[in-house]
């Protein structure tokens, strides 16, 4: 039986796992956006926080994912359910590209334009919302794109702690030394990553200031 026949026969299960996968990636990316973009803005306003925030996000990124899942296991409430655990871990991994791109996007806005805005009497809030964020939007979306694609891949590992998703097939296939099963998890995951990449890439182009 080849991988296509397997996926066709088990299409409801494939679909379920894909939806689970999307849920893990979607929720964690959304949380990372809600935390990462404000943090990125914050460190443009308080340069002293720049090193600790970016450094912290960097360190999280260096922790091997399986180890991070393990570390978080004893955490109260979070550790009680595998999907919470997976979402937290994926959120933490997605933070770095979001914080970094928000920061570099805002810092990359033409200094002459920022100076003109200040010189004309814009308040800091007006400067941020009317000038800096619109002009940095393309770079920020690029960060969301990187974070999402990484997340789709990393979420397969969440199956190791029982959080579900397409990693289920991969781990099952590994245990049973069954390549078809591994592919049945890997191929939809790769397709998801590509779709996320292409659609966010399109959005990035649309929103970038021309």
């Amino acid at each position, binding site marked *: 039986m080849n991988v296509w026949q397997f996926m066709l026969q088990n299409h409801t299960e494939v679909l379920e796992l894909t939806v689970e996968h999307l849920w893990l990636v979607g929720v964690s990316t959304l949380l990372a956006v809600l935390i990462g973009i404000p943090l990125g803005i914050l460190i443009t306003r308080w340069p002293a926080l720049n090193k600790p925030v970016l450094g912290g996000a960097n360190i999280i990124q260096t922790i091997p994912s399986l180890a991070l899942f393990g570390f978080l296991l004893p955490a109260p409430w979070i550790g009680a359910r595998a999907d919470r655990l997976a979402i937290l871990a994926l959120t933490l991994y997605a933070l770095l590209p979001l914080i970094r791109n928000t920061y570099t996007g805002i810092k990359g806005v*033409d200094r*002459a*334009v920022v*100076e*003109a*805005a*200040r*010189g*004309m*009497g*814009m*308040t800091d809030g*007006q400067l941020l919302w*009317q*000038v800096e964020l*619109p*002009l940095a939007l393309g770079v920020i979306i690029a960060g969301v794109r990187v974070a999402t694609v990484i997340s789709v891949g990393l979420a397969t590992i969440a199956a190791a702690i029982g959080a579900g998703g397409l990693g289920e097939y991969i781990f099952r296939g590994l245990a049973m030394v069954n390549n078809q099963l591994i592919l049945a998890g890997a191929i939809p995951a790769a397709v998801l990553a590509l779709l996320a990449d292409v659609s966010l890439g399109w959005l990035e182009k649309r929103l970038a*200031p*021309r």
Partner: protein
Amino acid sequence: MDTPSDNRPAIEFHNVCYRFDNGQTLLHELDLEIRRGETLVLLGRSGSGKTTSLKLINHLLVPSEGDVRVDGRSTRDWDVIRLRRMIGYVIQEGGLFPHFTVARNIGLVPQIEDWPAARIQQRVQELLQLVGLDAQLASRYPRELSGGQRQRIGVARALAADPPILLMDEPFGALDPITRAELQREFLALQQRLRKTVVFVTHDLREALLLGTRIALMEAGRLVVVHTPDEFVNSSQPLVAAYVDAFGTDSNATGKRGHS
């Protein structure tokens, strides 16, 4: 115009020093008064402290020592947002917002001052006309305009809320000679009508002689002299003479004034 406050200079520098945190001094003990309705040109080469002086007026920079006063009040005591909104600011290349249309660029200060939309729109049309641009440009983006058009938009934007003071930092520096001459003429005509207090930064002696009521020559962070254009070209002060020599300007340059 005849209020008693008119006798007071619009802008005063009192013993102003500006230095970086590392101790490097950009401006030494600057004393200067800028009168209401005059065009004071800050002339000097790169790094002489012209732009620094300009940014001290709208509080983009804060003096390390001394006091800059606008309307008799120290810039430290002004509400900085209020201060900046009564000072128009034009920089090289205009510093236009690339993601805003021409209309939004020009109407920016009125918009953040919460004018009603209809009044902003009307004001934008007035200003486009004032700087000699087609009303249809309002919906364009800055990238779709020529350098000269962008610079006109920059001037229109600075004039939007009718500020009494205008700061211009090498506004025509990046333009080709023909467009530059055109904008200089228009500036003179405009200034004769509007009588703003203008502080104009340039390194171009011809521009200074043409546009300035008075010229303040700066060198290495110090004010050398403040002269009228006529005094300037006839001055025997060595730094002034050197500057005039470097440009090889015939004293006729000032003759152009008044004809426009």
